[in-house]
Structures are given as structure tokens and as C-alpha cells.
């Protein structure tokens, strides 16, 4: 079991290495002179030349990659052309905001996905199932940015009960940074009003971001539960008089969790893609907004850094999912030990 996980870790590390090569090549293909871009059009040619040397842009591509990777391993991701700060600092500042947003979205996805999926199974082919199906289609057919725009319209103009911009209200001091997650940091300080304010700012983007994922999870949950319902063991459990709700939430849900978790985990990983737009629209100071700005301004080092971080998050997520699934399913848990 542990050996298996270790093997997974090694293969994921390889993928990570591959990702670094891929990202490197991708940004090198970007047209434009990075050094010139960094210094602006009016900088003297010698200065640009000097910067080029400093950034090793005058060397061959493999050598460049070597220096770049070496820098990363030492925690140096280069300097952002836009913010003029070390990218490591930028990431340290923006990443926690995105993680907080993603965590809340993930919680929404898992809970609502299961709730809606089980309800749809329970009333399959009846009206609650139909309503859930329509809802889940809505989540799938519209991209996150559309829901973001819609939510803005709704909460900024029509029923202004939730804030639609930023992480905290103006005039409220940010918490002392411990975890970087504002809600947690406020709570650690005992500042409940602050935590509530941060939560209110987070709710709307998180719902918008998780909407598509909730739909997918609910659908997969329903699909795999309905197919398990046709297995003889479900008929047996029913024949033995075990209450319907217990069959649903215990005996059908658990064997169905495998596919639910793998799909939901994928959706959560994919959520970082949608976050690029949602964070921008809600003006939420997270890493994804930072990444999108970098892309639009061709800030190559920042783009590659953000992509790497995203890749690390997704790969880490896959690893966690593998571990959770193997713990939940005895068939996998015992397969190497017996």
C-alpha cells in the first residue's frame, strides 16, 4: 500500500519535471524580446544587453532551462515585468487567496454534489430528479464567467446583499497573516466580524466557481448510484427490509464514491481554470487573476511560474485523490497486502 503510494509519488514527480520542460518551451516560443519588454522601449540597448546576460537569454535553450530550473529549485522564479517584484513574493501574496476560494468551492462541490445526486437517485424519474437535471444542465452549459456576470448583475444591482468585489470590505484591516486564508486568520485572532466579512466576500465567487462542478458531481453521483441500484446486493438489502434512506446514503453511496471522487477531484482541479476569469470579474486578488494579467501582458516569467504552481496543485490533488480512493475501497486497499 505505502509502496504503491510511493510509486505514485515518483511518477507524479516525473510528470512535474515534464511539466517544467513543457512550460519552459511554451514561454520560450512566445514572440517578443523578454528583456526589452521588461525594460520598456526607451531603455538603452546596453542595459537591455546586460539584462539579457543576467537572465541568461543569450545562451542556448538547454542552458537557459538549466538556469531556470536551478533558480526554481532555489526558490527564485525570476522577476515580474509588471509588478517589478520577485515572482516568489507575488505568489506568496496571491496564492492563499486562491487556495481559500478553491477550498470553499471544493466544499460546495462535494456537499451539494452528493446531496443533489442522492436526491436525484431517490426520486429518479420523478419531478425532483427532473429539476436537478435541469439545474445541472444549467451548470454545464454556461461557462463560469457567464455566471459571474449574472451574479454581479444580481447582487450588485438588484438585491445588494452580498459584496461583489475584493476579499474584505474597505476600512477593515486585513488579519495578521498566519495561514494566508483570511477567514482562518481572523478566527485565529478571535475577530469574528472580520471572518464573517471575509466569508461574505468569498461566497459569491465560490458559488459561481463551483456551479459547473456541482452539476458534474451530482450527475456522476446519480449515474453511478442508479447503476449500483440494479446490482443484486441492492435488491437483497431492500428485500431484507433495510430502510430506503439507509440503503441510499450508506450502501449505495459508498460503492459509488469511487467515480464520484475521481470526477469531483478532476472538477476541483479544473476549477483553477475557471478561477482565472471569476477572480478577474470579482476583482478578487488571487493567483489566477495575477496569471491572467500576466498572460495578457506577456509577462513570461510570471506566466510560467503561475502555470507551474497550478500544475503542482493539480498533481498534488491527483495524489490525494488516489490515496482517498484507495482508503475508501477495500478492493484496492487490500489488493497488495493479501
Amino acid at each position, binding site marked *: 500500500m505505502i509502496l504503491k503510494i510511493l510509486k505514485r509519488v515518483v511518477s507524479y514527480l516525473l510528470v512535474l519535471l515534464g511539466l517544467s520542460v513543457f512550460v519552459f518551451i511554451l514561454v520560450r516560443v512566445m514572440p517578443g524580446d523578454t528583456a526589452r519588454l521588461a525594460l520598456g522601449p526607451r531603455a538603452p540597448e546596453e542595459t537591455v544587453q546586460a539584462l539579457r546576460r543576467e537572465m541568461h537569454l543569450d545562451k542556448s535553450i538547454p542552458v537557459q532551462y538549466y538556469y531556470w530550473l536551478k533558480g526554481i529549485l532555489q526558490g527564485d522564479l525570476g522577476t515580474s515585468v509588471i509588478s517589478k517584484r520577485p515572482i516568489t513574493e507575488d505568489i506568496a501574496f496571491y496564492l492563499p487567496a486562491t487556495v481559500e476560494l478553491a477550498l470553499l468551492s471544493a466544499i460546495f462541490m462535494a456537499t451539494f454534489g452528493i446531496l443533489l445526486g442522492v436526491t436525484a437517485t431517490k426520486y429518479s424519474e420523478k419531478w425532483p430528479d427532473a429539476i436537478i437535471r435541469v439545474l445541472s444542465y444549467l451548470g454545464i452549459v454556461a461557462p463560469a464567467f457567464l455566471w459571474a456576470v449574472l451574479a454581479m448583475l444580481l447582487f450588485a444591482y438588484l438585491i445588494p446583499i452580498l459584496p461583489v468585489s475584493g476579499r474584505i470590505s474597505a476600512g477593515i484591516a486585513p488579519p495578521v497573516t498566519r495561514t494566508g486564508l483570511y477567514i482562518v486568520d481572523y478566527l485565529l485572532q478571535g475577530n469574528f466580524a472580520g471572518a464573517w466579512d471575509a466569508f461574505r466576500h468569498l461566497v459569491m465567487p465560490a458559488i459561481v466557481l463551483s456551479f459547473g462542478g456541482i452539476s458534474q458531481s451530482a450527475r456522476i453521483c446519480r449515474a453511478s448510484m442508479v447503476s449500483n441500484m440494479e446490482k443484486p446486493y441492492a435488491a437483497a438489502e431492500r428485500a431484507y*427490509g433495510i430502510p430506503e434512506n439507509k440503503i441510499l446514503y450508506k450502501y449505495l453511496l459508498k460503492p459509488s464514491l469511487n467515480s464520484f471522487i475521481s470526477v469531483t477531484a478532476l472538477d476541483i482541479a479544473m476549477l483553477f481554470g475557471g478561477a482565472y476569469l471569476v477572480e478577474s470579474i470579482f476583482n478578487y486578488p488571487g493567483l489566477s487573476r495575477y496569471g491572467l494579467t500576466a498572460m495578457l501582458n506577456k509577462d513570461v516569467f510570471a506566466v510560467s511560474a503561475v502555470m507551474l504552481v497550478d500544475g503542482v496543485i493539480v498533481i498534488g490533488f491527483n495524489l490525494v485523490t488516489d490515496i482517498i480512493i484507495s482508503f475508501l475501497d477495500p*478492493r484496492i486497499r487490500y489488493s497488495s497486502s493479501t
Partner: protein
Amino acid sequence: METHIKEQDNRVVDVKNLFISFRTFKGYTKVLNGVNLHVRRKEKIAIVGETGCGKTTTVYAIAQILAKQARVDGGEIFFKGRDSLRMNEKELKQLRASGISVIFQDPIASLNPVFTIGDQMAEVIRYSGIEGARDPRVQRERTVAALRETSLPDPERLMENYPFQLSGGMRQRICIAMSLATPRDLVIADEPTTNLDVTIQDQVLKILRQRVEEKQSALILITHSLGVAREVADRIYVMYAGNMVETAGAEELFRECLHPYSRGLMSCIPKLSGGGIASGIPGHLPSYYAPPPGCRFEPRCPHAMPRCKQAMPPMYEAAPGHCVACYLYERGTSA
């Protein structure tokens, strides 16, 4: 109504003229075509027939676990004198908790793959309505006892196992143990040995029979093998394409079977005395979408008569307790 209950005094299950159809992509398939069947207290019966003849549908209807696509078109199913097709939720719960238990054909799929044997058995006992069913200690004791009585070795360790860690034969014995862990009026076993190794089929059947007798339950065994039926059952129903075509005591049926279909089945049993490979019955089951209006066996029957095409023959009592649905026996067994 009252007279009916009195008349059926000893009958645990009494199926009357049951019609069931299934919705499919081509329309409705008329699977059960007026099935009549009864089981008395402590009686062991077997339903014998080809795959697809409606055996499973019949018993699923009795156990009230039919699939959603199934539609009951007519008939009644009395369980201890009460029509289970018209039972309310509470009565159904009672029926399931202590009335009927089912052993399925596929021991791999009939145990939940992600819970231990102990957990699953405890849950069954918990909802069986016996005294102290909610007490984990009682559940455990009962589980251990039930496993031991099914001659499964080392019950305590077995309870910690997951189904996939056990062999098919062991799983089927666990299903038997589960179905008889608490008292039941009726046990339904749907081809319990079909998916097992030939070498352990006998053993499992023996345990099933023994346990049903000890617990004084009635048994409905579904099988496509007359040999298996004879080994276990007191009385045998032969089923063909949604109809019961013949019923008789097991020994009586083997002494003299009457319906042309039963005869065909009988000749399929290989005999040690030689005679080559069994001849089989030519033809195949009729289409359930548009079944023949008369006797459903008529297209394959060597003795078919013109009237067989027109109407389904009723049951004729050829000898005491020996009934057959065939016009050949309209005037007794002299045919």
C-alpha cells in the same frame, strides 16, 4: 375473502393468475402469462425451466423486488393470506423484515463489495424485528451463530473480511447464513449454485436444505436442473415461457412426467446407462412480444393439435397432486 383465507390455511404463498410484463424498447413483453403457484408451510418446492422462462420474475414478484420496468397486469400474490400486491409500506416492511429472504444467483454481486461480512449481516439482523435486534451484542452473537451453523470455519475472522476476499462457495454460504440468521417464513433461492464450481454445488445445496429444515422455513428453489430440484424439493413446478405447465411431487414427477415439455427436459438429463448425448428440445422460447395465443409450447410440441393454437390449456389434475396444463390430459392420463 374469509373463506379464502381459511381455505389457504397452510399456504405461506399463494400466487393466483399472475400476469407481468416488462417495458422494453420494442414495447411490452408479456413475461408471466397467468402463473399459479403455492407453497405450504415448511414445504420445499422447486421451479424448473429454461433461462428466460419467467422463474426469476415470479419469485421477485413474491418478494416484491421487481425492477421498475416491470408492470403487474393482473393477478394476486397472497403471503400468509394477505395480498402483498396491495400491502401498505408498513406491511411490506414486515414482509421484508421477517417474512421472506432471498438468495441470489450471483454470490459475487449479491454482497455489497465495500462493507465487511460482519457489518452486512449485523444490518440484516438489526432490521429483522427479533428481540434485541438493535443491540450490537445480539447482532454479533446471531451472526457468529448463523455463520457457524452454515459450517463456515472461523466465523469471528470471517466477519472482518470483505466479500472479494472469499471464494464463490463461501460467499454463497454466507448468503444462506444471512437469509436464515433470523426466522423466516419463506426463503427464496434463485439458482444458488449456477455460478459455483461443480464440486461445491452439492455441498451448498445440502447446507441450504439442512438449514431450511432446521429453521422450519418454506423454500422456493429456482433451478434449470431437474436433478437439483429432485435433490432438494418436495414438490416441483415445471415452467415454460411464463406458464406453469406441470406440477407434481418430486418422486411422482420423476416416476411419470406428463407434459411434452417436461418430458423433453427429462430426456436432457444424461443417464449413466448410455444412449449418447441428450437430444434436447428443438426450437427455442417464443417471442414475448407476440407470444402464441394458445399454448406457448405449441410451436415446439411434438404432439401439437389444432386447438393448441387457439387457447391456453387449463390445468388438468391427472393424479392427486399432479397437475398438467395440456389438452392431451383432458380425459385423464390415458394419453
